[in-house]
């Protein structure tokens, strides 16, 4: 990264999509009238769902949604990297491989033959992988999905010439700030909040339910302690595996926690 101060007054911006549900682009498409404001402040040169198409263009900032999951994706992400001064990965698919990375633990080729009658026509890599597995990523915004305020904070930071920031602390800190009663302590619910990255605003505990880790691992996540706590709450080892193997199954901290719990299954 050459430094965010190198971003011009009206930056050229692209929004690219790889394997995903489209939900993170909606953080922009759901901005309402702010979307029109944004379109005045940046030059949207490529954003297929919104209209502009120029995937090969040189841009100042490329937002990338989705995971790399086909041979063609590999080519495309390299091209995007070469033509973007700053590359920002948005959402769980782009930062950890997403929910579709659950196939990484299975026999993907066998899955193809089970679903499609012309498996030869399906170009799919064995693994679904995050953008950072293939090219240098300047900034990662975690979340499934990322929210409009998160995206606007990044764009505003860039427009002001500042480096974007993100909160890697735990969902627990957001619960405390909102004054939500802890669902784990007060109701015995197996909550992922203690190891999950903040950013959503503790939406799930706010509804009295468990966090399920959709923002990925927090920094310094103590997954061992949480897995032990899940055990004390009566979760069987395979249920503990499922807790860590969901939206962000390939994030290293969650993958390691699931592997440990899996060993407990085998014992």
């Amino acid at each position: 990264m050459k430094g965010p101060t190198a971003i011009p007054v009206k930056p050229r911006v692209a929004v690219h999509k790889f394997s995903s549900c489209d939900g993170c682009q909606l953080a922009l498409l759901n901005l309402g009238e702010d979307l029109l404001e944004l379109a005045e402040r940046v030059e949207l040169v490529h954003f297929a769902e919104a209209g502009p198409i120029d995937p090969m263009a040189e841009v100042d900032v490329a937002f990338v949604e989705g995971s790399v999951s086909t041979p063609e994706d590999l080519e495309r992400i390299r091209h995007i990297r070469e033509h973007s001064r700053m590359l920002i990965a948005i959402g769980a698919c782009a930062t950890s491989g997403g929910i579709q990375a659950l196939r990484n633990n299975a026999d993907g080729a066998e899955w193809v033959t089970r679903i499609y009658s012309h498996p030869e026509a399906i170009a799919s890599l064995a693994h679904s992988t995050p953008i950072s597995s293939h090219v240098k990523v300047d900034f990662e915004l975690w979340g499934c999905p990322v929210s409009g305020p998160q995206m606007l904070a990044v764009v505003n930071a860039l427009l002001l010439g500042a480096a974007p920031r993100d909160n890697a602390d735990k969902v627990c800190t957001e619960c405390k700030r909102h004054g939500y009663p802890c669902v784990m302590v007060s109701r015995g619910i197996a909550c992922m909040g203690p190891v999950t990255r903040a950013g959503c605003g503790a939406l799930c505990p706010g509804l009295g339910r468990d966090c399920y880790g959709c923002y990925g691992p927090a920094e310094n996540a103590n997954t061992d302690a949480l897995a032990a706590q899940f055990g004390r709450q009566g979760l069987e080892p395979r249920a503990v595996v499922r807790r860590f193997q969901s939206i962000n199954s390939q994030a290293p901290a969650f993958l390691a926690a699931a592997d440990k719990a899996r060993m407990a299954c085998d014992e």
Partner: protein
Amino acid sequence: MSEQRRSVAIHVPVLARVEGEGALDLRIEGGDISELRLRIFEPPRFFEKFLEGRHYTEIPDMVARICGICPVAYQVTAAQALEQLFNVELSPWARAMRRVFYCGEWIQSHSLHIHLLAAPDFFGCNNAIELARIAPDEVRRGLRIQALGNELMELFGARSVHPVGVRIGGFHDAPSLARIRELREKLRAALPEAEALVRWTAGIAVPQDDQAFVSVAMRHPRDYAIERGVIGASDGLLIEPAAFDDHFAERHEPTSTALFGSYHGQPYLVGPLARLNLNHARLPEPVQALLAETGLVPPSRNIFHSLVARAVEILLALHEALRLLDDYRVPDSPWAPATPRAGVATGCTEAPRGLLWHRYEMDSEGCVVNARIVPPTSQNQARIEEDLRLSLLEFGLDHPDDALRLHCEKVIRNYDPCISCATHFLRLNVERT
């Protein structure tokens, strides 16, 4: 004629403003269409496979990830299927609020489609930002309606993309009366805006197309079917969702990562126009009156009426949400307890883009043995190809490539294809020999 015999091969990235990654191959030989294929190559994401072994409590959060634009449809369909298998009786509150929640998604998705994806075509604009320069009030109105749909989803789901409120048996939590009161005011204020939207869409000049097709949609004896009902077709079919496989089939074409649906071997239409064709008599009286005023008389054989159909459904959804929130009370419990049992669960609802069908085989522990999900876009895919062929012939094949491409895009956007519920662009290959 010499122009037409010239061999032309074009490879252009064309269809922006759809959700999904696809291509259209068009080959014109001697003034006739020799090949026309909608190719979908959005990478497969294998949801049906990785749902295997998952616990029923996880399913609503997982299936939401199939589509960021219509997660509610996936969540509610899965919940409905499992609740039926587990003999869970939803409380009247939960039943009503599921419909309100779903109305939010219709409002959001339809308004996004009308303003950001479809309308620019009819004003010579490349996108909604350009359209906002010539029709600022209309675009801003549309974005406000879209935002209101999102707010309705957030009321029950805390966020509108992958909401977190649905659980088997109802919802995790119930909104407070104060929040409902606030939203009711906004819904009421949006009614005249949505009426104006219906009139605006009805005033947009669209091609006069006339094609024969079978419409398939859910039907309900009293309501305009959204979150419950049976499956009906314009030829008189009326079946329980569990009998879907007896009449509908999916086949895989080597050109696609989606499956092609057929009804008794034929293409069929699902989505807003199919619903309007079958269920217009179930619209609330003021919505029927406004529809009559527009001059659109259902059943319609013109797929370009989909634009008005979406606007009409936005107005319907606002009326329904208001009706159901009218005497809102916070329930004793927002959910009923569920006890898993083994068996086959089927569920069916009307996603914004059309019929959505789920089938889960469950074990006695409440884990998925196998899953099948039939989304609206794969059902429409064969119909889109059939429509393109007829529509292009009607339009005339000797138009320049750009005009052909735009016409194809307009036709395809009528279906609001959510190609594997993800996005990109369509590449059009025109070959002329």
